C-alpha cells in the first residue's frame, strides 16, 4: 500500500514540474513584450528586446495617453464595437433560439435546419465581401466592424436552444400561457432571465471575438478614424510613423517627446491584451464550461 501512494506522489511531483516548465515557457513571450513596452527606447535600439533591459522608461505609455489621439480613438472604437456587437448578438441569438426550443412550434425542424445548414456550407469570403460592399455599402462605416460574420452563429443558437429545451421546464411556459401571457412576454419575463448562465457564456465568447477581431477591419475599413486597436496595430507594424502623421494638431506646441517607436509597438499590444488578462481569472470557470460544451456538441 505504501508503495502505491509513493507511486502516485512521485507522478504528481513529475506532473507539477513538467507543467511548471510549460507554464513558464507559455508566459515568457508575454513577459518579453510586457518588459519591452517599458524599456527605454535608446536601450531598445542598441540591445533589442530583452528580458533584462538596462534602463526602464514609461515613455511609451506616456506617449499613448498624452500624445496620440489616434491610439485612444482606436481604443474607443474597439470598446464601442465590443459592447454593441455583444449586445446585438445576445439579442438576435436568444430570440432565434427560443422558438426553436418549442416542441409545439410548427416550423421548429425546418428553421433548425435553416440555421444548421450554415455550419455545413459557406459561400466564401469573396461573394460575402462583394455583397457587403456593393449591395449594403458597408465600407468605412462602424457597421462594418459589427455586422458581418459574427452577430449570429449557428453554434451559439444551438447552445441557447439546448439550454431552453433541457433546463427550463415546459410547464413554466404553459402556466404563463394560461395566465394569458403572449409569446413576447413569456420570452422577456421568463425565458430570457432564466437563461442568464448560458447568455453569460455566449457573451463572453462573443465579446472576446469582437475585442480581438481584425478581419472585418482589414476587409472593410480604410479610413483611419474607424480603425480598431487591432487594425491600428496592423498598420503600425509596417509603418510606425503612421502614428506621427495623424497626431492631433491641437497637441502641437505642447511639450512633446519623440515617438518611441519600438516600445510603443509593444505597449499598444499590451493595452490590447491587458483587459483580457485582468478579466480572465474571474471568468475562467465559464470559459472552460463553454469550451467543454462546444466540444461535446459541436
Amino acid at each position, binding site marked *: 500500500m505504501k508503495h*502505491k501512494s509513493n507511486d502516485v506522489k512521485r*507522478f*504528481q511531483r513529475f*506532473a*507539477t514540474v513538467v*507543467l*511548471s516548465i510549460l*507554464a513558464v515557457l*507559455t508566459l515568457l*513571450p*508575454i513577459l*518579453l*513584450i510586457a518588459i519591452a513596452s517599458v524599456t527605454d527606447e535608446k536601450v531598445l535600439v542598441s*540591445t*533589442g*528586446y530583452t*528580458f533584462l533591459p538596462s534602463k526602464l522608461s514609461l515613455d511609451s505609455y506616456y506617449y499613448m495617453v498624452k500624445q496620440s489621439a489616434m491610439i485612444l480613438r482606436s481604443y474607443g472604437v474597439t470598446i464601442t464595437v465590443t459592447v454593441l456587437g455583444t449586445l446585438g448578438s445576445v439579442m*438576435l441569438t436568444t*430570440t*432565434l433560439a*427560443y*422558438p426553436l426550443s418549442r416542441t*409545439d*412550434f*410548427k*416550423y421548429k425542424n425546418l428553421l433548425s435546419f*435553416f440555421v*444548421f445548414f*450554415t455550419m*455545413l456550407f459557406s*459561400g*466564401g*469570403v*469573396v*461573394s460575402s465581401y462583394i*455583397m457587403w460592399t456593393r449591395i449594403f455599402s458597408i465600407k468605412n462605416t462602424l457597421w462594418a466592424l459589427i455586422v458581418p*460574420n459574427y452577430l449570429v452563429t*449557428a453554434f451559439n*443558437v444551438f447552445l441557447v436552444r439546448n439550454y431552453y429545451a433541457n433546463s427550463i421546464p415546459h410547464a413554466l411556459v404553459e402556466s404563463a400561457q394560461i395566465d394569458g401571457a403572449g409569446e*413576447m412576454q413569456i420570452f422577456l419575463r421568463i425565458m430570457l432571465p432564466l437563461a442568464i448562465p448560458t447568455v453569460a457564456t455566449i457573451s463572453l465568447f462573443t465579446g472576446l471575438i469582437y*475585442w480581438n*477581431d*481584425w*478581419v472585418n477591419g*482589414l476587409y472593410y475599413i480604410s479610413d483611419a478614424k474607424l480603425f480598431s486597436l*487591432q487594425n491600428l*496595430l*496592423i498598420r503600425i*507594424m509596417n509603418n510606425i510613423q503612421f502614428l506621427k502623421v495623424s497626431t492631433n494638431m491641437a497637441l502641437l506646441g505642447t511639450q512633446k517627446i519623440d515617438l518611441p517607436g519600438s516600445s510603443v*509597438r*509593444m505597449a499598444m*499590444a499590451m493595452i490590447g491584451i491587458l483587459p*483580457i*488578462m485582468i478579466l*480572465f481569472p474571474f471568468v475562467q470557470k465559464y470559459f*472552460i464550461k463553454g*469550451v467543454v460544451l462546444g*466540444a461535446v*456538441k*459541436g
Partner: protein
Amino acid sequence: MQKRRKKRLAKTGPLLLIAAPGLLYLLINNYLPMFGVFLAFKDFNYIKGIFGSDWNGLENFRFLFRTRDAWIMTRNTLLYNAAFIVIGTVVAIFVAILIYELGKKRRVRLFQSALMLPNLFSWVVIGFIVYAFLNADTGFINNTVLKALHITPISWYSTTGPWPFLLVLVYLWKFTGYLSIVYVASIAGIDKSVYEAAQLDGASKIQQIMRVTVPLLKPTIILMTLMAVGRIFYSDFGLFYQVPQNSGRLFDVTQTIDTYVYRGLMELNDVGMSAAAALYQSVVGFMLVLGANTLVRKLDHENALF
C-alpha cells in the same frame, strides 16, 4: 377542426415574429453569399457590377489550376492541418493527463489559466509577440540568443526554412491549453472503478495511464480528429497572414487557400480567380464535412452532427 387550426396559426405567428430578426440576419450574412458563388464563373468587372459582368464559364478555374499557386496553397493547407491534428492531439493529451493527475484543484486552475492565456489573444497581438522575437533589428533571437552563440543573425521574415517549424510552434503555444480542456473533461468522465481494478492488479501509475486512460480516450480522440478532418480544407487566416507579417518571400511555406483568397481579392483585385479559389474551398470543404460526419455517425451515433 377549423378552430384548432386557427389556434395553431395564432401560436405560430408570434413565434415566427420573435425568430424573424435572427433568421433575417442568417439569410443575409450566410445564404445570400451562397448564391453569390456564381461570381466564380464570371469575369468580374467593378464597373459592370455583379450582374452586368460577363460570364466566362470555367475560365477562372482553368487559369487557377494552371498556376503553381493552386498546388502550393492546397499542399500547405493540408500538410499544416495534418501536422496540427497529429502533434496538437498528442501534446494536448499529454498535458491533459498531467493536469488531471495533479489532483490539487488550485494548481489545476493555475496551470490551466497559464496555458490557456495565449488562446485569448488576437492573431495580430501574437504577430507582435513573434515579431519581438524574430525581427532583424531589435528581435530577441538575433540580438541575444544568436549573439551569445556567435551565430550570424538570420533574416527570419525572408528565410523560408524555419517557418513550418515556427508555425507549428505558434499553433501549439496558442491552442494546447484550449485543446487539453476537452481531454481533461473526457478523462474526468472515466469510471473510477476501472482504475481501482488496475491498482488491485498491481498496475503502476504509468501503466494505468498507458493501459487505461489512453485507450479509454479513443472515442474522444477519434471524434475530435474527424471534426478537424472535416475542416482540413480551411486554415486559420490569422496564423498564416499575421504571424509571418504577410511577407512575400515566405509565400512558398505560408500561402494557404484562405490567404490566397484574401490576397487575390484585396491585394491583386482579381475577383474571378479569388472567387474560384473560394468556391473550390467551399465545395471540397462541404464534401469533407459530409464525409467526416458519415464516419462519426457510423462509429458513434450520439456525436454525429446530423
